[in-house]
């Protein structure tokens, strides 16, 4: 495979994590414009762990998911009673707060005669783990997709579990869910934490792929894109947000013919799709119909 293709595929894989993160909250009925905050926290946490503390990559990725998930739980508690646009604006405000805090974040350590670490708005250079340990770009690509496959498998299990049903029920009507005995507050915080951890994991991978992170990457546009992926791709299955990512990054960003018009096409696509297919291309009805094709016909009666 040529480098360009590997780069595009790596990008698609990493952005899929934050798209899945926003999608999980969509399932529970909340719109978040702020998942990029947890992506940023994960990126910085993983970068600090390998570049400054000398941790192995696996531990650093686990740490990035854990700390981003923890942060998401901490934000989830005060925003719990907000709904709809109030919740959306609160997440947006929080994400911008995080981005501006990283602009102020200095943590420099002398390593091998050179200062390494986050340096405010100049960003965080020298996250060189994959070069120092001879991880090839194909190997790293495999790692991204392995983790993505694990996340997707987790979602498939979730859809078949009581927890998944509970999430969808809360998304449909949280009052009704509470009346049916679901612990809505706890489940919502759990969803927020899981979504934060997913975004954090994606951020950890991102930091190691690019070797360099800077606060302005994690602006609102990243958050809105990741939300839009789920809305385009569909709310019916976890493959929905992936489809959205493939359409945007695989098609619009990578094909030269669209250069300069990407936002015009993408923005128009989102707006039109929200009118004609409000729950995305792969919505619940379509997923259900496809699912029935694979179920064997019931045995004929006597």
């Amino acid at each position: 495979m040529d480098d360009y293709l590997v780069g595009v595929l790596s990008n698609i894989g990493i952005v899929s994590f934050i798209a899945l993160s926003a999608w999980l909250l969509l399932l529970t009925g909340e719109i978040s414009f702020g998942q990029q905050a947890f992506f940023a926290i994960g990126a910085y946490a993983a970068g600090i762990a390998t570049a400054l503390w000398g941790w192995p990559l696996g531990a650093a990725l686990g740490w990035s998911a854990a700390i981003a998930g923890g942060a998401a739980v901490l934000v989830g508690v005060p925003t719990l009673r907000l709904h709809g646009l109030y919740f959306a604006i609160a997440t947006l405000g929080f994400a911008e707060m995080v981005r501006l805090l990283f602009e102020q974040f200095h943590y420099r350590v002398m390593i091998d005669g050179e200062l390494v670490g986050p340096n405010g708005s100049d960003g965080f250079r020298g996250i060189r783990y994959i070069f120092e340990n001879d991880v090839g770009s194909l190997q790293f690509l495999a790692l991204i997709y392995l983790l993505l496959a694990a996340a997707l498998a987790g979602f498939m299990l979730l859809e078949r579990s009581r927890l998944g049903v509970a999430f969808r029920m809360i998304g449909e009507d949280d009052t009704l869910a509470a009346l049916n005995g679901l612990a809505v507050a706890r489940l919502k915080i759990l969803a927020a934490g899981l979504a934060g951890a997913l975004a954090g994991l994606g951020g950890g991978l991102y930091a190691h792929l690019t070797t360099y992170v800077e606060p302005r990457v994690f602006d609102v546009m990243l958050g809105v894109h990741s939300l839009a992926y789920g809305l385009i791709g569909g709310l019916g299955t976890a493959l929905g947000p992936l489809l959205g990512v493939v359409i945007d990054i695989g098609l619009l960003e990578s094909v030269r013919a669209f250069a300069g018009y990407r936002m015009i096409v993408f923005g128009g696509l989102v707006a039109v799709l929200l009118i004609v297919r409000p729950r995305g291309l792969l919505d619940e009805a379509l997923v259900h119909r496809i699912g029935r094709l694979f179920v064997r016909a019931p045995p004929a009666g006597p």
Partner: protein
Amino acid sequence: MVDLVQNTIDGLMIGSSYGLLALGFTLIFGVMRRLNLSYGPSVMVGAYLGTLVYVQLAAGPLVVLVVTVLGSVLAGLYVERLCFAPMAAGAGVASMVSSFAIWMQLEQAAVLVLPRHTYPFPPLATADPLAFGPFYLRVDGLIMLACALALSAGVQLLLYRSRVGLALRATINNPVAAHLAGIDVRTAVVFAFALASAVGGIAGYLVLATDQQVTPMFGMWATFKGLIAMMIGGLGSIPGAILGGLVLGVVEANSQWYFGPQVRDLLAYVLLFACLVLRPGGLLGEAPSRQQDTGRRGA
């Protein structure tokens, strides 16, 4: 102490433009119960057209003002057509997301037409600041403050003393009942959008004429300042919008003076987040009811 007073004066002046942006936001929210995040970018489209006639045709400030306002109104109506008109009632969140998507579209369209990073904008007043003892008042700031107060009073009068305003308020109160009473709700909504975009266009013109330049960042700037000011003041309240704008302006001017620009932006978001968590209704608005936008149902 002198610094504090001077900063507060400057803050009130710039805050009045935030208040105008919030006023436009709150008008749309009041009528639609929806948030139009493309509001700032549509004002930016107007401003870009304004700077285009200024740069290409050397138009005077008045022509630039008219073009800016007209351009904002046209872009605002485009957003209404695409993001608000086709959405089912109760699909407020879908409209909000859709307006964010159109934001990217408008921004890129503006950049395609005028690709340089900054373009000049004709100044409003070049007179020296007025001195009062140790304090200075910028002339363009005073014009901005006067315009903000006059426009918000005008909008308040329009809403409460005219038949159009009555129709708008009836629509705000209950669209179905308004329709049954013979009010053309569709026209009322379009009128509210046009009015809000015109107010935004004037605010945008005042801000850019003070800065004397326009950049592609202006759309995001206008949306965020208006949004934060509106949330602080209270969704749907006109006096709240102006008050929220003034509060935001004073906080920003003082924090910039004492802590620098990065802390200024950070504090604005801290204020927004704290306001939403502690008092979602804002200073003068009503607390959100559970019926409004409780999810994406019907979206």
